[in-house]
């Protein structure tokens, strides 16, 4: 399932608001607001009280008049503490501002200058990053002289290198993107590219880092003032108060503890708020791909056995490898649950190859993941019946069942680079399967792995076992992945777009290999793909999915001539093949694929269907058995000859819809 929703301007505001809704975000935002408000208000309101000298009350402890006591001139420490917020926060922000400005300049300059100078700047930043910040600050304090200005500059410049480094990394990442190349082609200059294209796209992480950095500066400043390198009397900030209070810490501990506490609270406010926002920035998309979280399948509470089909299978023996009834997969979404799979029912016989075809968002991958029990939390899977090799998978699996699943069920993913561990040798990864599930020792397991690699026709199998995944080419890696699947003796191989990442010539090799394994070992294959022709070539039966449902289930041989669902017909017509008439426009399917978070009432395809009428938009058609093995979910099924009649209808419809379709 690919959900690559890009960020919009409104999305940014929405996510900062979302940060406020988390407990940490709300508390830290409130704290931050109070600290900032105090910084503004306190110096205006209470400067008088804070600087009022009262020689009669020198160095007193906490009392009702002086909540945390007085200092050596009898000034009220509580008010001094409040008023000090102003200077502390102001200096911290000033230092952060300098750090951010210097960091931004240093970080973006390499992208503006010639490569050679850019490299020099980068090298300089890299050296500067290696210096400990506080050491740098003390070094600067000595150069700039002891006092506020020196300290602000010192802390600002000390935080600059790490900010510059982050900026550089982010700029470099954005510069690789195609939209920068497109802007270059449009004749947009370097400066404008930086200001209009790159900076807006890296602003968010930079702002978050700056917020957290402000907390750090505050602490650093308190430290410098405490050491006497920062604010000098008669001015005072928290660090200074802490310094003064420390002399009498055994007599009046509150005089030292209170400024310390203030520093902690303000520092926490900045840091936590930054963290909370950062967390919502990195929010993963609700529906993500694979992952090995344990999946719990539950039966729906109200089992509505919709057409409890005794599914006909083209193979003769009535012992299905896999039976699925009413499979649902759903994820919690911001506006109610998203249900990418909505009541899928089918069965697979031994040695049968079935293809699942659909566009992105049709739920085909989620179906595969649900079968492999790999749907990630917070996704939930339910089914009224889910049996693998006669074992019920709905109850929590016993040890034996897990064993069966481990050895008899194999899964091949689209990108074999992502499904192998890049730091482990291929041999060790294959052997692990045999060691875990077949109880072999290491030597036996490696021998088995070599044998399996030979079976998937990887040349020089023994040598290959000692190699890492990156040393394999794409096609070889996919073979090794299939080899891993047949380490046990699988009854079913689920292959999710196994050839999409491969080249056409290699694609054929992998498909041929899958077919060969199927023939030799009587293995059932569930091949998931977006390519109808490809599936038709390998499989005996094809399931066409649209918006989370199977809309048609038909023998592959009937695909070209006897497809009945308008969607299947449209798919067949829309894809050019080597016989397509070059002088006529391609048939098109108007509109866009259904969004799993917004499935309409009635037939999900109705808005794109040339045959749709009022009935279709009101009621969802059920998947009904027609003649031998053919199932269709459509109110108006008709036998189009795939490539002739339907395209014309669709074209007319497309013309009518031109405006809104696009």
């Amino acid at each position: 399932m690919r959900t690559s929703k890009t960020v919009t301007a409104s999305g940014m505001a929405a996510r900062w608001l979302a940060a406020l809704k988390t407990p940490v975000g709300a508390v830290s935002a409130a704290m931050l607001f109070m600290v900032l408000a105090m910084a503004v208000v306190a110096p205006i309101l209470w400067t008088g009280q804070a600087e009022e000298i009262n020689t009669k009350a020198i160095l007193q402890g906490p009392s009702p008049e002086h909540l945390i006591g007085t200092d050596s001139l009898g000034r009220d420490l509580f008010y001094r503490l409040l008023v000090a917020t102003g200077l502390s926060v102001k200096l911290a922000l000033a230092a952060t501002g300098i750090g951010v400005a210097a960091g931004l300049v240093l970080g973006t300059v390499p992208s503006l200058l010639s490569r050679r100078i850019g490299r020099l700047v980068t090298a300089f930043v890299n050296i500067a990053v290696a210096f400990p910040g506080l050491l740098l600050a003390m070094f600067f304090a000595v150069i700039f002289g002891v006092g506020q200005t020196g300290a602000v500059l010192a802390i600002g410049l000390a935080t600059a290198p790490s900010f510059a480094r982050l900026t550089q990394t982010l700029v470099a990442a954005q510069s690789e993107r195609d939209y920068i190349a497109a802007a270059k082609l449009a004749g947009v200059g370097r400066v404008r590219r930086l200001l209009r294209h790159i900076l807006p796209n890296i602003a968010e992480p930079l702002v978050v880092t700056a917020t957290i950095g402000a907390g750090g500066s505050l602490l650093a400043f308190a430290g410098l003032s405490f050491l006497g390198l920062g604010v000098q009397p008669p001015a005072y900030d928290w660090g200074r108060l802490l310094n003064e209070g420390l002399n009498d810490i055994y007599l009046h501990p509150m005089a030292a503890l209170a400024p310390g506490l203030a520093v902690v609270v303000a520092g926490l406010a900045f840091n936590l708020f930054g963290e909370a926002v950062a967390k919502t920035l990195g929010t993963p998309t609700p529906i993500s791909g694979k992952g090995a979280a344990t999946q719990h399948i539950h039966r729906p509470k109200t089992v509505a056995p919709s057409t409890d089909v005794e599914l006909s299978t083209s193979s003769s023996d009535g012992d299905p490898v896999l039976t699925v009834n009413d499979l649902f997969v759903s994820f919690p979404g911001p506006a109610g649950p998203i249900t990418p799979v909505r009541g899928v029912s089918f069965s697979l016989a031994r040695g049968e190859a079935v293809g699942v075809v659909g566009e992105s968002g049709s739920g085909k991958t989620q179906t595969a993941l649900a079968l492999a029990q790999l749907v990630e939390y917070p996704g939930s899977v339910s089914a009224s019946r889910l049996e693998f090799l006669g074992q019920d998978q709905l109850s929590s699996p016993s040890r034996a069942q897990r064993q069966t699943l481990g050895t008899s069920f194999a899964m091949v993913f689209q990108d074999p680079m992502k499904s192998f561990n890049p730091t482990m040798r291929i041999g060790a990864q294959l052997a692990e399967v045999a060691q875990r599930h077949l109880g072999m020792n290491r030597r036996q397991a490696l021998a088995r792995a070599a044998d399996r690699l030979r079976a998937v026709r990887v040349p020089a199998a023994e040598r290959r076992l000692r190699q890492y995944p990156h040393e394999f080419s794409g096609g070889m890696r996919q073979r090794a992945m299939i080899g891993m699947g047949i380490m046990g003796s699988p009854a079913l191989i689920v292959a999710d777009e196994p050839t999409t990442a491969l080249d056409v010539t290699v694609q054929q090799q992998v498909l041929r290999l899958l077919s060969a394994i199927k023939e030799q070992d009587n293995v059932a294959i569930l091949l998931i793909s977006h390519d109808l022709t490809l599936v038709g070539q390998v499989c005996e039966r094809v399931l066409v999915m649209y918006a989370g449902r199977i809309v048609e289930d038909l023998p592959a041989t009937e695909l070209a001539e006897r497809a009945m669902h308008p969607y299947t017909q449209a798919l067949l017509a829309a894809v050019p093949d080597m016989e397509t008439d070059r002088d006529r426009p391609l048939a098109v399917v108007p509109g866009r694929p259904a969004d799993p978070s917004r499935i309409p009432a009635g037939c999900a395809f109705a808005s794109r269907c040339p045959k749709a009428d009022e009935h279709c938009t009101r009621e969802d058609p059920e998947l009904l058995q027609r003649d031998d093995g053919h199932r269709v979910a459509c109110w108006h099924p008709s036998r189009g000859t795939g490539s002739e009649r339907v395209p014309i209808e669709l074209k007319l419809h497309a013309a009518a819809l031109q405006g809104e379709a696009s």
Partner: protein
Amino acid sequence: MSELRFEQVSVRFGGRRGMTAVDGVDLIVPKGQVVGLVGESGSGKSTLARAAAGLTPLSGGQILFNGQPLRPKRGEHRPLQMVFQDPHSSLNPRMSIGDSIAEGIPRAGRGGTASRRSEVQRLLGLVGLDPQRAFSYPGQMSGGQLQRVALARALAGQPKVIIADEITSALDVSVQGTVLNLVRDLQRDLNLSMLFISHNLAVVRYVADAIAVMYLGRIVEQGPAEQILSDPQHPYTKDLLAAVPSQGSPSLTPADIDPAVQAVNDAEPADPHHPPSGCRYHLRCPMGPLVLPDRDVCREVDPQPEGHRQAAACHFANDLTISGRVGLL
């Protein structure tokens, strides 16, 4: 002669241990024609495209437009524009569609805000989008719509040549057709020259007037689309054609495959960092030394395109003088 001409173009990445992604490519994209460039990933198709667009520096040869090297100065008209594979990444997510397109309008004739806005609306109409869409952001649109926007932005530069790099491979199959139709219509209406890059031979066949086949950084065969498809000369082209799945193609059951063909099937693609000696395809070639052991020439001598039909870089391709298919190869 408004044409794009590649002359002995080479692109090298990295230093001494680097790799040559494009190696001495000669190719002409004639005025108003579509040249399809096919090949597997890593064959250098996209690098060639980026080199033409000036996004990747050449290490040898030159790319000429109308006999002039393509090196536009700032603010000058750019005769060449490019459309990228993934529209989600080729449009700035923080810029409205209209702003993205407006940026492509050449500075010279840009005029005021009003004229720019009307130009954006005209372009949106041209690619079949509602002009009101100018205020949308990329996140609010589907892949097919975004690819139309990317086309509109490319057209905003009033290009003579468009380079389309795998523009349909990131789209859903039901949407792919609409984009292909649009590209074809626009190309014909505006009389654009186009380099159309795709790994999908069926798509290239539908769009292109001429086809060039690329393998490991070299063009191994080129010619009119009809000829390449009906009478391929280079064994790699033949393999590519045979690999296209079609509804009528035979089943994949490997019952009757003889060992030589099986050996070819199991051969691994060559490593572009260490291209093989002699003919670059000999490690996978079904009519090379893998199957016919006496063909040492493939292992040792680099085949030249000169003198062969469709400039096929194969020792055993038919000669120019021979008409029709001769012999069993």
